[in-house]
């Protein structure tokens, strides 16, 4: 049984990094991730964490330095947000294509302009094609636990893919809650020592991240595809094993709340899932059988699991804290894809809310649900914007 402390999401992530015995840390500061960099620097300088801290001049170099450390056979860590994550974009795809097991924390923040330091998922959503595994957390406790699990998932020899642990800016990163910090001995039992197949070793010389074309290229891309698909199973196993040692279960790929008999299901990622659950309870009192499906793993996107939960609902409200311009919210598109081909697919309404750190209240969600249940045509692409009049 670990120690219980009243800490923020950022501190929780830093605590997880310490427990995971990370060997090289290279973090470039950006609000709201800076406390992670600061806490880790303190751990390293007091000797609490035996690690090397590299000072870098940009996020691009931060993730590159982690890549370098990975190839030298050492477990690395970095974190970023918004503009910084965008600057790392090239290296995210590099790490994934090159099959390097890295873990990075992303404190989800809006992209400029307009400038906003507050929360939104656009920054990590726009990295969804880089080939990194993405896990979205709701609380500081989940941030700590998921970060520890992330190392195990990334370093699994059937996976060897970078993992992004995404936590909401300020609502999770800077809000204090009671968090149980696991014992080092238990974490050592759960997380084996670092392993990678991409090693720079003069005793077994190889060339890494080389060029290829045609069939060779396609073979390697297919391997990558398979690895991330395998990660679905690995994520669920990690969740189960974590529960058996630490007693906390996050559902693996998704977390379902009162979905079994629901006519209306709210699909959401991140910390506003709590508000969604309160709203679901309120709506049930008013006669609308509502449930909440929190998506935890956005990549790999668990099509089958989501389809199983949603196929008996009449309406699905997908809340997106992001917007794929030229289409609709990214989560909505993916959910739509998961439901394709079902005989009685539910009507889907996309609710774009919480951008730029806007608070999404129970009232907002209730209003959106009430708008949604007026829609009877399943084929209609219904999208609502928070604060704006309903757009049909």
């Amino acid at each position, binding site marked *: 049984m670990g120690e219980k402390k009243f800490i923020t999401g950022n501190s929780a992530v830093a605590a997880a990094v310490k427990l995971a015995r990370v*060997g*090289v840390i*290279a973090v470039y500061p950006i609000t709201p991730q800076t406390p992670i960099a600061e806490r880790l620097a303190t751990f390293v300088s007091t000797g609490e964490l035996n*690690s*090397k801290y*590299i*000072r*870098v*001049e*940009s996020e*691009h*170099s*931060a993730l*590159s*330095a*982690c*890549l*370098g*450390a*990975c*190839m*030298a*056979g*050492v477990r*690395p860590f970095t974190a970023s947000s918004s503009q910084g994550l965008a600057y790392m974009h*090239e*290296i995210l795809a*590099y790490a994934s294509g090159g099959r390097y097991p890295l873990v990075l924390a992303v404190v989800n923040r809006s992209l400029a302009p307009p400038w906003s330091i507050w929360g939104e998922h656009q920054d990590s959503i726009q990295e969804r094609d880089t080939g990194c595994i993405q896990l979205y957390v709701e609380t500081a406790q989940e941030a700590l636990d998921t970060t520890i699990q992330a190392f195990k998932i990334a370093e699994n020899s059937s996976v060897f893919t970078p993992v992004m642990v995404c936590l909401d800016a300020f609502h999770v990163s800077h809000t204090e809650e009671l968090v149980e910090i696991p014992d080092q001995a238990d974490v050592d039992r759960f997380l084996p020592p670092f392993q990678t197949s991409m090693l*720079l*070793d*003069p005793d*077994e*010389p*190889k*060339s*890494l*991240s*080389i*060029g*290829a*074309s045609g069939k*060779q290229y396609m073979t390697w891309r297919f391997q990558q595809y398979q690895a991330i698909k395998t990660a679905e199973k690995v994520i669920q196993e990690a969740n189960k094993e974590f529960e058996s040692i630490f007693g906390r279960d996050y559902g693996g790929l998704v977390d379902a709340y009162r979905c079994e008999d629901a006519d209306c299901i709210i699909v959401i990622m991140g910390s506003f899932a709590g508000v969604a659950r309160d709203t679901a309870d309120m709506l049930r009192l008013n006669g609308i059988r509502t449930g909440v499906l929190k998506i935890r793993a956005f990549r790999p996107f668990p099509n089958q699991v989501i389809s199983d939960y949603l196929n008996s609902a009449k309406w699905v409200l997908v809340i997106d804290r992001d917007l794929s311009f030229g289409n609709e919210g990214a989560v909505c598109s993916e959910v739509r894809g998961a439901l394709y081909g079902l005989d009685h697919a539910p009507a889907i309404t996309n609710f774009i809310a919480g951008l730029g750190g806007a608070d999404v209240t129970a009232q907002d969600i209730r209003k959106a649900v009430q708008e949604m249940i007026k829609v009877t045509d399943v084929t209609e692409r219904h999208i609502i914007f928070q604060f704006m009049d309903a757009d049909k």
Partner: protein
Amino acid sequence: MKIKDVAKEEFITGSLSCAGCGNLLAVRLALKALGKRTIIIIPAGCLSAVTCFCPQIPFRVPMFVSPFAATSAILQGVSTGFEFRGIKDINVLGIGGDGATADIGMASFSDAIVSASRFIYLCVDNEAYMNTNVQSSATTPTGAITTTTPFPDTMQETRLSKKNLFSIAVAHKIPYAATASVSYPLDYYEKVLKAARTDGPSFIHVQIPCPPGWGFPTEKTIEIGRMAVESSMWHLLEYKDGKVRFTHVPKKRIPISEYLKAQARFRRMKPDDIAHLQSMTNEQLAALEANQDKTPL
């Protein structure tokens, strides 16, 4: 140092480089100096283009192709990783071209050379983006024809001067920095050995003549490099223990017009430009001579 002291083992043969490639010679000699326990980091450029497409991988040491702007950051990461594991006997060598170092990689280079990480950064300078068909880079000399400066005197983008990477490294107070040339191989070899012994970052800026890019026949690669030093358009310097000095002074000096005329890329230079460049070169040489064995600002 004598030729017989140069190591015999070959670490790179069978690459798809051009005939007479100066870059290849620089890498071949550097690897001989550093030996088997070396790992190389190469960004996009001529070198990686001729050595990274499987199955024709000619290196006999571990190699990693790095993202273009990130070479120095990768070097920092690898070096720190080895340090964490207590491994002290592996040379960490980055081989970046002029574009990868002085243009796109400038930010990460500037940061890495003030760190405490142990690595050798070898900038192989062929004075343009040669791999992608000769575009102008930060180290392209004034008056050189490239595909993005086809008429150097009319293009507003023509460089005022070649970016001086050696001075930049010295300004960062890097523990060891040097300029070298493949035409002076023993001087270069010794510098690589010194860099390997440095306890911290080190930088070697080696000029590598390029027959197709500069416009001269393939057999003259070494001759052109020699002329660069003899005309004082390239110097053989070293920054060690806080002082800059020449490591080799050519026995004869030639006017820069001889060096310029030997390469097709300078054919559009006018006599006025050449005269102006000659006086600037003379001034620079005089300044370097006056500041020998002194600590730069």
